[in-house]
């Protein structure tokens, strides 16, 4: 693993983690439920990025599937919450 890539991945991971922390502040602070839900959606998304960068970092293709699942279903939780806020129930 080249030092360059190592540094870059570390930087990217750090950025994502930092961004997640910022988003977490929004999640905890709110002020409205939609902010929080959106924050959760972003957390999922950041998780996906983290997983992908870890794939690059470890030269491995195995992390792709996890990222795929998050990309595919990360929105389900947050959209279910959004619907809940909107309708008071998730599935009608």
């Amino acid at each position: 693993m080249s030092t360059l890539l190592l540094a870059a991945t570390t930087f990217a991971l750090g950025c994502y983690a930092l961004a997640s922390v910022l988003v977490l502040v929004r999640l905890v602070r709110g002020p409205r439920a939609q902010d929080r839900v959106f924050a959760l959606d972003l957390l999922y998304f950041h998780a996906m990025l983290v997983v992908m960068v870890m794939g690059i970092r470890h030269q491995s293709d195995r992390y792709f599937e996890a990222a795929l699942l998050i990309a595919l279903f990360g929105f389900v939780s947050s959209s279910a919450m959004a619907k809940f806020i909107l309708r008071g129930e998730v599935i009608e």
Partner: protein
Amino acid sequence: MSTGNLLVDAGVAALLVGSGVLVVASAVGFLRLPGFFRRMHPPALAYTLGTWCVAGAATLHLSVLQGRAALHPLLLPALLALTVPVTTVLLARVSLFRRRQAGIEGTPTASLPRDREQ
């Protein structure tokens, strides 16, 4: 065990750094901007270009590593494009709904024929 190609490494690194910067920028915006609808804009940076950079980096990296075209990381932005709107559309609607419910004046609305009839 790098790709062995410095140029490729540099490209991957650049893409990664770019995505990192974009993601942080979007998070900063999401945290600091006033108003929910304003806050909804910055994450799009991360959802689009931020992801594309990472996907590009992964594709590049893997393709060089395996010595063949590994395009599957590009699936992720595609899937994201399909799924992200679901949440944002719903959340925007939530925000409007709640503003109306709270009786906040000046909540805009897509003009609706049925309302005009009433």
